[in-house]
């Protein structure tokens, strides 16, 4: 197999990590909605932590993105 093609495939596989981040974010906001609907008064208090978790979860997926970028352009 040519190196160039292998690089492309490798970068594509590395980008799959973002799927994990997607699942994580889905779980996070799903749980947040559930909590907010169950207890609407607490909604304003619950707003900050999901945002923090969003940033942390998204970062794990972006590590994969960085690997893909390094493979492609590094």
């Amino acid at each position, binding site marked *: 197999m040519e190196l160039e093609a292998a690089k492309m495939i490798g970068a594509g596989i590395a980008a799959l990590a973002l799927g994990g981040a997607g699942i994580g974010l889905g779980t996070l906001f799903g749980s947040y909605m559930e909590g907010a609907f169950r207890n609407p008064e607490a909604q304003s208090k619950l707003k900050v932590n999901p945002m923090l978790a969003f940033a942390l979860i998204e970062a794990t997926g972006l590590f994969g993105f960085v690997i893909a*970028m*390094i493979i492609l*352009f*590094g």
Partner: protein
Amino acid sequence: MPQFDPAIFSPLLVWLVLTFVALYLLMSKLALPKVAAIIDQRAERIEGNLAKAEQLRAEAAGVLAAYEKAIADAKAGAQAELAKAGADIAAETAKREAEFGKRLAEQTRTAETRIKAAKTEALAQVKAIATDLAGGIAGKLTGAGVDANAAGAAVDAVVKERA
């Protein structure tokens, strides 16, 4: 990626250190103390106002207590005055009643004695008139003079009989 080009590392790092140290010094020496000062001042002002408000509240409570005490005192005074006046009036009334009763009894008594005297006098006069009348009537009927004493005795006997 341009980020992994080692040639850019040293200028980036040098300028990062320069600018970040400058920012840190500007923040810690110039900018943040200003903000801290005004926030502290505000906190102090709020605390001071709260303390003043608390003090004023305590003062107001004191004034209210004094006012309530004055009202209570006045009420008690008025009640005492009222009770005293009532007692005075009652005493006066009782005294007057007693005096009036005494005078009434006295007048009744004098009147009774006067009535009694008048009665005995009237009775005595009735006896004299009856004796005269009886003597006169008996003289006219019999045509002879009747002894005054005998007439008196007869009237007495009749009065006694009737009584």
